[in-house]
C-alpha cells in the first residue's frame, strides 16, 4: 500500500496530508452540475446534425413545440446570438479566421453539430421533443480525412479557408539544414499517424443557467476549467455586460482539457434561460460527448532526423498535419496542436538544426481542442522513434543514444529559441534503465518470450506564462493569475485562485501553500475557486499551470498579507517591522523576544473591531492581492518512462508486464497527489497507444458513438505503475514546484510503442502508428512465432 509521505518537519508543503475534498466526495455529498436543482428548472437537449456536411434548407420545430412537456424550442434564427471566434494575430497566409455559430445557421459541418435547442419540463420530454424535429439538409460532399481535405478540388468546410487549411506555419528553418541532411552519415525517417481521441471526463459537460432578478444577473453554473473566459464569450454572444453574467463552477468530474474551451451548448442553454426567464439545465449525454464534444490528437507526422556516426543528432526536418475537425476552439484556436508541435518538438535533445511546417486542417468531423499533453504525446513519440531507429541503424544501444543527445547543461537555449530551466533529463534516464535492469527485466526480455523494453524521455513546459502564448500569437493571451487573500475577524483566511480544480485537489494543495507562507494550520485556510463574482480574474486550469502559476500567485498574496500582519504587530508591540516575524503558529512575534507575540486573531480583532488602534496610514481590514506571471520561457518538468511488454502471437494483444516512471516535477507540494496525476496520465497515455480511437466512415458518420465501441481501458488493462521521484526545484515558482498534470500522458505512448517495436525486433517490421492495432502486431509476428 501507499504509506503517506511525510517530509520536512513542520511544513505543509511536501506532506501528503489527507485530501480536504475527500470526505464530501466519498459520502456522495459532492455537488456536481447535474446535482444542481432550481425551482422551476427546465431541461434542454439539442437537435443535432445527422449529416457531416450539408446546407440547412429548413428547420421546422412546430412538431417539437407540440410534444407534451416541451416548453420551447429555438433555432439559430430564434436566438440570434453572436458567434464564437478564436483568433491568432498571424498574417493571412498563416491563419484563416473562421467562426463557430452557437447553433448551426446556414450549414452543418459535422454529425452532432447543434442545430436547435429544445427545452422541456424534464429531460425525457426534451428528448421526445428532439425526436420530433424536422431538419431538411441539402447534402454536400464531406471531407473526412486530412488528405482528402488537402486534395485538389476538395469541397470546402469553410468557404473562407482555401485547401481547408486554417493554420499553415513554417518555423525555425535553420540556414544550411539541407546540407546537414545531404552530408549526414545517417538519416532516419518516421512517418506516423496518431488516432483521434476523446479526453472523456467521466462527468460529461453540463450547465444550469438562471436569471436572477435580484442580482440582475445571469447565473451560469457550468463545469468549465475556464470560468472567466466562459463569462466573456457568453456576455459577448448574448450582448450582455460582463457584470451581468456570473459563472460558477461546482465540483467537476474531470476535464483533461475538454472543458477548457468554451462550448456552444453552454451558451445556447444560457441564452434559452435568458429568453424564458426560467432556469435551464443541460447535461450532455454520453453519445453526444462521444460524437460532438471537443476531440484531439489526430495528427500525421513526416519527420527526418540526421545523425553523425556516433549517434549525435545533427538536424530535424518535420512536417506536421493536424486534423482539427470542423471548428477552431476558443480561446486556443486551431493552432493549438500544430503550434505546440512546431515550437517544442526538439524535446529534451540538443538539436543543432531544425525546420518545421505545421498545419491545421479542417474536416467534417467533431472539432478538436486541447487534451492533456497537447501534441506532446505525439511529437515525443516521433522523437523517441527517431532515436530508436537511429540507434538500430548505427548499432548503438537505445538508451545510450539518448544519453549522447539529452541536454545536460542548463539553462539551455534550443534551436527553437526556447530556454529550458534545469531538469534531470540524463538522471531520470539512467535511473529508469537501472530500475529495469535491477529488477531483472533484461533477463526476462532475452528468455525467448515475445518481450520488449521501451523508453521515452521527455520534458514538458508547465509554466506557460503570457510570454509563451503571446509568442504563439493568440489574440487572447492566457498566462498570469491573480490571487486575493483575506483574513477574517477570527484570524482564519480565505484565498482565491483563478485556477479551477477538476480533480487535482486545489483545496488541499493551495491551502498547503498558504498555510506554510503564513504559518497556519491548513484547517484555518479556505480556498475559493470557480466563481467569477468572487475571483478578480483568472485563467483557469490547463497546461499544468495550477500549482506553478496559480500556486505562485496564492503564495505571493499570502506573503503580502503576512507583511500587513507584521506591520500591525510592530505598531502594537512598539517594535520595528523588521524585528517582527511570523511565528509559524498563527501569530507574529518579536524576533529578539519571542515570548512577546500577538496571535492572528488578536491582530484581526484590531484590524476589524478596534481599527482606531491601527498604525497611521494602515486602513482597516486584512486583505492582499497579488498576481503572478512567468518570467522567460517557463519551467520544464521532465521524466523517463520505461515499459516492458509481452506480445501474444495468437491474438496480437499487448500486455504490459512492468511500468516504471521516473519523474521530476520539482518540489512536490503533495507527493501522493503527484503520483495520482502520474498514474492517471499514464493510463490515458496507454489508452492512446493501445485502445482508444474515434473513427468515422466515409460519409463522416461516427463509428464509436457509445462506450461499447470507444474502448476505454479498465483495471484489467492498466498495470500497476512504479514511480520514482527526482527533484530539481524550479527557481521562480513558489516552493520550487513545476507542473505535474500531463507528464504521464505525454510519456506513455512513446514508451509503449518503443517496447512493442523492441518485442518485434527480428521480424523486420516496425510499427509507428497509434493506436497500435492487434492486427498489425499479429501480422508482424505471423511466421516468426508460428
Amino acid at each position, binding site marked *: *500500500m501507499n504509506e503517506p509521505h511525510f517530509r520536512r518537519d513542520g511544513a505543509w508543503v511536501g506532506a*501528503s496530508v489527507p485530501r480536504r475534498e475527500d470526505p464530501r466526495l466519498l*459520502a456522495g455529498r459532492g455537488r456536481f452540475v447535474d446535482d444542481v436543482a432550481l425551482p422551476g428548472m427546465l431541461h434542454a437537449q439539442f437537435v443535432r446534425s445527422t449529416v457531416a456536411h450539408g446546407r440547412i434548407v429548413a428547420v421546422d420545430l412546430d412538431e417539437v413545440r407540440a410534444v407534451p412537456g416541451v416548453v420551447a424550442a429555438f433555432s439559430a434564427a430564434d436566438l440570434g446570438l453572436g458567434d464564437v471566434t478564436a483568433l491568432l494575430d498571424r498574417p493571412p497566409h498563416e491563419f484563416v479566421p473562421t467562426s463557430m455559430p452557437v447553433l448551426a445557421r446556414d450549414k452543418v459541418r459535422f454529425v452532432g453539430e447543434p442545430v436547435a435547442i429544445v427545452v422541456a419540463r424534464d429531460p425525457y420530454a426534451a428528448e421526445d421533443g428532439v425526436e420530433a424535429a424536422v431538419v431538411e439538409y441539402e447534402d454536400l460532399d464531406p471531407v473526412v480525412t486530412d488528405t482528402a481535405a488537402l486534395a485538389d478540388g476538395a469541397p470546402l468546410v469553410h468557404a473562407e479557408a482555401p485547401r481547408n487549411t486554417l493554420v499553415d506555419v513554417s518555423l525555425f528553418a535553420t540556414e544550411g539544414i539541407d546540407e546537414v541532411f545531404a552530408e549526414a552519415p545517417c538519416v532516419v525517417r518516421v512517418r506516423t499517424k496518431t488516432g483521434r481521441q476523446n479526453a472523456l471526463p467521466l462527468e460529461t459537460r453540463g450547465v444550469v443557467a438562471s436569471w436572477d432578478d435580484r442580482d440582475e444577473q445571469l447565473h451560469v453554473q457550468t463545469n468549465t476549467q475556464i470560468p472567466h473566459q466562459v463569462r466573456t464569450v457568453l456576455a459577448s454572444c448574448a450582448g450582455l455586460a460582463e457584470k451581468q453574467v456570473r459563472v460558477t463552477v461546482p465540483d467537476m*468530474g474531470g476535464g483533461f482539457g475538454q472543458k477548457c474551451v468554451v462550448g456552444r451548448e453552454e451558451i445556447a442553454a444560457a441564452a434559452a434561460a435568458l429568453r424564458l426567464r426560467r432556469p435551464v439545465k443541460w447535461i450532455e449525454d454520453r453519445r453526444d460527448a462521444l460524437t460532438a464534444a471537443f476531440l484531439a490528437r489526430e495528427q500525421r507526422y513526416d519527420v527526418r532526423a540526421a545523425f553523425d556516426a556516433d549517434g549525435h543528432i545533427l538536424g530535424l526536418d518535420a512536417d506536421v498535419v493536424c486534423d482539427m475537425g470542423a471548428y477552431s476552439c476558443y480561446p486556443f484556436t486551431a493552432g493549438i496542436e500544430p503550434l505546440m508541435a512546431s515550437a517544442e518538438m526538439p524535446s529534451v535533445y540538443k538539436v543543432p538544426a531544425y525546420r518545421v511546417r505545421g498545419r491545421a486542417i479542417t474536416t467534417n468531423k467533431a472539432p478538436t481542442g486541447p487534451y492533456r499533453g497537447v501534441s506532446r504525446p505525439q511529437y515525443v513519440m516521433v522523437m523517441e522513434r527517431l532515436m530508436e531507429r537511429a540507434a538500430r541503424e548505427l548499432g548503438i544501444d537505445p538508451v545510450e543514444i539518448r544519453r549522447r543527445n539529452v541536454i545536460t547543461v542548463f539553462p539551455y537555449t534550443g534551436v527553437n529559441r526556447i530556454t529550458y530551466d534545469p531538469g534531470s533529463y540524463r538522471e531520470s534516464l539512467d535511473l529508469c534503465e537501472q530500475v529495469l535492469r535491477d529488477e531483472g527485466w533484461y533477463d526476462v526480455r532475452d528468455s525467448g518470450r515475445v518481450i520488449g523494453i521501451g523508453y521515452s524521455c521527455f520534458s514538458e513546459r508547465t509554466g506557460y506564462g503570457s510570454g509563451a502564448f503571446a509568442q504563439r500569437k493568440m489574440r487572447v493571451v492566457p498566462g498570469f493569475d491573480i490571487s486575493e487573500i483575506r483574513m477574517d475577524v477570527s484570524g482564519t483566511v480565505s484565498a482565491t485562485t483563478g485556477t479551477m480544480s477538476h480533480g487535482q485537489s486545489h483545496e488541499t494543495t493551495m491551502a498547503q501553500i498558504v498555510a506554510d507562507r503564513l504559518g497556519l494550520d491548513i484547517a484555518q485556510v479556505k480556498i475559493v475557486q470557480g466563481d467569477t463574482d468572487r475571483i478578480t480574474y483568472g485563467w483557469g486550469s490547463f497546461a499544468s499551470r495550477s500549482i506553478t502559476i496559480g500556486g505562485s500567485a496564492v503564495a505571493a498574496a499570502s506573503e503580502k498579507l503576512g507583511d500587513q500582519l507584521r506591520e500591525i504587530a510592530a505598531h502594537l508591540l512598539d517594535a520595528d517591522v523588521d524585528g517582527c516575524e511570523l511565528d509559524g503558529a498563527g501569530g507574529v512575534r518579536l524576533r529578539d523576544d519571542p515570548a512577546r507575540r500577538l496571535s492572528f486573531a488578536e491582530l484581526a480583532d484590531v484590524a476589524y473591531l478596534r481599527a482606531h488602534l491601527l498604525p497611521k496610514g494602515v486602513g482597516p481590514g486584512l486583505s492582499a492581492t497579488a498576481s503572478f506571471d512567468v518570467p522567460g520561457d517557463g519551467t520544464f518538468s521532465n521524466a523517463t518512462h520505461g515499459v516492458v511488454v509481452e506480445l501474444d502471437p495468437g491474438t496480437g494483444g499487448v500486455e504490459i508486464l512492468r511500468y516504471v516512471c521516473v519523474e521530476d516535477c520539482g518540489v512536490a507540494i503533495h507527493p501522493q497527489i503527484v503520483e495520482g496525476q502520474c498514474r492517471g496520465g499514464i493510463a490515458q497515455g496507454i489508452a492512446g497507444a493501445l485502445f482508444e480511437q474515434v473513427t468515422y466512415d466515409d460519409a463522416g458518420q461516427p463509428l464509436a458513438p457509445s462506450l461499447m465501441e470507444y474502448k476505454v481501458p479498465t*483495471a484489467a488493462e492498466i498495470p500497476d505503475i512504479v514511480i520514482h521521484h527526482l527533484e530539481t526545484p524550479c527557481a521562480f515558482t513558489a516552493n520550487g514546484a513545476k507542473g505535474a498534470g500531463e507528464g504521464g500522458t505525454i510519456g506513455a505512448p512513446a514508451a509503449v510503442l518503443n517496447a512493442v517495436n523492441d518485442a518485434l525486433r527480428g521480424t523486420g517490421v516496425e510499427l509507428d502508428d497509434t493506436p497500435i492495432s492487434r492486427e498489425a502486431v499479429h501480422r508482424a509476428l505471423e511466421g516468426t512465432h508460428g
Partner: protein
Amino acid sequence: MAEIQLVELTVNGERRDLAIEPRRTLVDVLRHDLGLTGTHVGCEHGICGACTVLVDGAPVRACLVFAAQVEDADIRTVESLSAPDGSLSDLQQEFSAHHGLQCGFCTPGFLMLAEGFLAERPDATKEEIREVVASNLCRCTGYQTIVEAVDTCAARRREGTCA
C-alpha cells in the same frame, strides 16, 4: 403524456412513495426524485458503472433498471455508507488513505461495487478484486489505488482491524 404509475421503493432502509412515468430509470429516481445525488450518471448505457447501487446486496447499474422494476427490493446508495454524523466507513477511509479518488465522480460507483463484492467475497484475492474493479471506469486514477484501497479494506476486515 405518458401514464403515471405509483411506485414504492425502499432506499437506504426508508420507504419512499413515488408517482412516476414507467420509463423513469432507477438512477433518475434516486437522483432527481429522491434527492440522493451521490449516485452519478456517466454513460446511461451500462458501461461506466458510475451509477452502481446495491439492489438486494448485489451491485446493479441503476441506469439500466427502471425504478418500477425494483419495487420489492432493498436498495442501497452511497449515502448509506457513512454514519449520520458524516463519519466515513472503513471502505471510504481506505479510498481516501490510498488516494483512490481524484475528481470523485466515479467514486460512489466504485464504493458500491466494492461494498457489494466484499460482502459476498470477504476472502477475495487482490487479483479477484482487480477483476471486479475492472467493471467500472475511472478516468483519473489509473485504478491502482482503487484496487489497493479495496484490498486493504478487505484485509483489515478479515483481521478485524477495521479503521
